């Protein structure tokens, strides 16, 4: 590791009086002398205020600084954090959480139920204008929507401190996966006195008061964020690594170079180089399923888009004639999973429906596609032509060109790819100004509804404007079912039949991790990780 770079921080660390044991207290493994951890971030963190955070980088840092009711273990299951346990009322709408009495803020104050009440009221308050206010509404906390719309005061939010260590949350309707949503930074507690004393400046190093395993010591936008072990954290005895440094490197090649030079413990791999590098660095460079799907959406809105694409047979034909294996093996090359349905199979508890098309050979799919297109009346005498929008990116372009070729060769269809700068592309998509458009979605929590809710007619993100009352009903009913998975499977079936979207692949997360770093999960599709779980073994 970069010893000179760490001199200053190591000194600071020594002054905090913390020290690591020679063996990991949980596993008994022998530990390396140096327990610093440096990881790569694609972009700068946008905000370290849990109520204002929007990006993955924000969440990764905030999970080290602040702790919510529950954390996730390596497989995405809930483990107690500030909450020791919870009870649910008989009507499944009132949750009562018992909080850990020894939980403390980094200034020594105890973490109390009122800190959660304050944070949840603050995020829904229109005055803060948080982008994730909708998350509390998605959790169905009573009055969340009305408060964000300015119709009710924040004090009427369905969250209450019964006493310092008992938190009560009322939700509008039963929601089986409600506890799973509590690992999101939008639900983390906040230290009111700090925010009131410093205003927007409270997230600066020196001002920041969190209840997480680490405290913020440096934040240089575009360069790095440094965190050191918090002595007041309730489980500080089991926190091994410190300091944690998050380095911003916008260029994947630069990140990889610095990883090879030993400056980073964790990095990404430049796109297209996964096959070579995973062979050269076995065990270090890996690819695991991720909760994101890549798709082309079709504009089904009345009077908008391309009329030909409103014929379901055309959409089916287009989907069938995409050779997803070619795209994955020759373009993406990082073990992505071909998608014939929308929700990634790795979502916790989700049973991926078996799709007939998945078991066919590409030649068989092509035959079916040709027949369907002919049936819809398109062919040499009535050619089909439309445009497909994507945002400027080499990867999107390669995929678009490959699919353009497949459609041309198999079906004689003319698809014209059009690229736009990201903001323009998104604007056109939300405004319904497209025939077909590239889209990707990543789950917010580890449950299939985070994907399937998207295509309900009432979803604000349904840019396809797909509307099927049967689908809406399946998704609405799923909210109150003990086991909603059959409904999810049925909903996937409807999507496959109506084909408002053409799923192309499910993402994988590609990473390079130094072999002496342990404790990173490879089985958490949301890629949620906690610095406090990491350690470096002696080699």
């Amino acid at each position: 590791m970069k010893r000179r770079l760490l001199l200053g921080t190591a000194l600071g660390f020594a002054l905090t009086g913390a020290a690591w044991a020679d063996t990991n207290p949980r596993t008994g493994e022998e530990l390396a002398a140096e327990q610093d951890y440096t990881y790569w971030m694609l972009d700068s963190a946008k905000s370290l205020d849990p109520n204002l955070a929007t990006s993955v980088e924000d969440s990764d840092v905030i999970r080290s600084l602040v702790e919510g009711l529950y954390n996730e273990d390596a497989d995405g299951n809930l483990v107690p954090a500030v909450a020791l346990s919870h009870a649910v009322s008989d009507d499944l709408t009132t949750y009562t959480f018992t909080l850990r009495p020894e939980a403390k803020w980094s200034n020594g104050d105890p973490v109390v139920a009122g800190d959660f009440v304050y944070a949840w009221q603050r995020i829904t308050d229109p005055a803060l204008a948080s982008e994730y206010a909708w998350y509390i509404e998605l959790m169905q906390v009573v009055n969340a929507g009305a408060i964000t719309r300015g119709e009710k005061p924040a004090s009427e939010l369905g969250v209450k401190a019964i006493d310092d260590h008992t938190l009560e949350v009322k939700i509008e309707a039963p929601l089986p996966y409600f506890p799973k949503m509590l690992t999101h930074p939008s639900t983390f507690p906040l230290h009111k006195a700090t925010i009131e004393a410093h205003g927007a400046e409270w997230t600066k190093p020196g001002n920041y008061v969190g209840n997480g395993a680490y405290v913020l010591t440096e934040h240089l936008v575009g360069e790095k964020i440094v965190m050191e072990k918090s002595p007041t954290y309730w489980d500080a005895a089991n926190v091994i690594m410190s300091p944690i440094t998050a380095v911003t490197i916008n260029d994947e090649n630069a990140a990889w170079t610095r990883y090879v030079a030993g400056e980073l413990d964790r990095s990404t791999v430049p796109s297209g180089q996964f096959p070579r590098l995973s062979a050269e660095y076995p065990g270090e460079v890996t690819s695991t399923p991720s909760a994101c799907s890549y798709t082309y959406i079709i504009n089904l809105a009345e009077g908008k888009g391309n009329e030909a694409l409103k014929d379901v047979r055309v959409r089916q034909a287009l989907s069938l004639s995409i050779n997803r294996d070619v795209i994955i093996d020759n373009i993406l090359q990082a073990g992505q999973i071909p998608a014939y349905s929308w929700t990634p199979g790795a979502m916790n508890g989700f049973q991926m429906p078996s799709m007939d098309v998945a078991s066919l050979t590409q030649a068989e799919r092509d035959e079916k596609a040709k027949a369907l297109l002919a049936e819809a009346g398109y062919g040499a005498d009535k050619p089909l032509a439309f445009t497909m929008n994507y945002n400027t990116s080499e990867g999107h372009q390669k995929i678009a060109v490959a699919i353009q070729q497949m459609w041309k060769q198999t079906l004689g269809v003319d698809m014209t790819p059009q690229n736009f700068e990201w903001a323009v592309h998104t604007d056109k998509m939300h405004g319904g100004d497209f025939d077909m458009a590239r889209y990707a979605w990543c789950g917010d929590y580890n449950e299939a509804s985070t994907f399937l809710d998207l295509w309900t007619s009432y979803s604000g993100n349904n840019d396809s404007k797909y509307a099927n009352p049967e689908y809406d009903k399946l998704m609405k009913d799923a909210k109150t079912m003990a086991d909603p998975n059959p409904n999810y499977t049925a909903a996937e079936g409807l999507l496959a039949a109506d084909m408002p979207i053409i799923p192309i692949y499910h993402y994988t997360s590609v990473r390079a991790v130094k072999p002496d770093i342990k404790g990173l999960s490879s089985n958490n599709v949301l890629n949620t990780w906690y610095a406090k779980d990491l350690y470096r073994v002696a080699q």
Partner: protein
Amino acid sequence: MLNFVLKRLAIAVPTLLILIILSYILMYAAPGGPFTREKALPPQVIANLQARYGFDEPLWKQVVIYVWNIVAHFDFGPSYIFKDRSVNDIIGQGFPVTLRYGIISFVVASVAGIGLGVVAAIRHNTLVDYFAVGVSIGAQVLPNFVLAPILVLTFTLWLGWLPGGGWEGGEWRYVVMPVLALATSYMASIARITRSSMLEVLTSNHIRTARAKGLPEAKVVIRHALKPALLPVLSYLGPAFVGMITGSVVVDMYFSTGGIGKAFVDSALSRDYAVMMGVTLLVGILYIVFNLLVDVLYAWIDPKIRY
């Protein structure tokens, strides 16, 4: 002279106002906005954001409020993307970084460029000249996004002399590669301008006179040829200086310096209007100041010029 400077400063005020108004209009004309998200935000959230940042006011009023906040409070507003930072904050952190590697780059590029150009001109049509021209053309055609990875491969991976990125408060080992990546192409331009201007001056009458009265060649070059030959270089150096101290997106992205250069591209792409305006104004003011400075220097170097 004083009159000239005052007049130029007076013109700067309307120039900046026009810059603000034009930038504002262009910003708003671009599709999308700071709250465009791949996951569309619910309408009430957008409404709250617009109210918080004053987008619900008419455009003219927004411009007036914006200018007033700058004039009265030196407040360039909050960033719409970096939610807990102000534009002053962002420029305050990033500008000292680019200022540092920019000034060093400027010195390196000027000294090396002028030196190379002068030597090439004096040794016109010799191997030295060909070498100097070769170096400057090579440096000119090598874009910094190619040079940066080559530098990292060489100095970080192969030789292991320098860290591959970061800034660490501007410690010298972190400054070397950003400076090389930034200075190289400027150095090449300066060398070419110096060389051709020097060649022209060396054939002029006053140089022939100087040589005729038997001055040593070194004195001819330094005292009589260099000063007039630097005039065209000077008009290039003004804008080049501003270009260097406001950084480079490639340098900031590749070397993770945390400089302001990246803010230009990022703020434009994410429609972070306030940051975009802030950096535009910063560059605008710097250009006005340094163009003025160049004009003043002109008069000082060339007695024929009077304002």
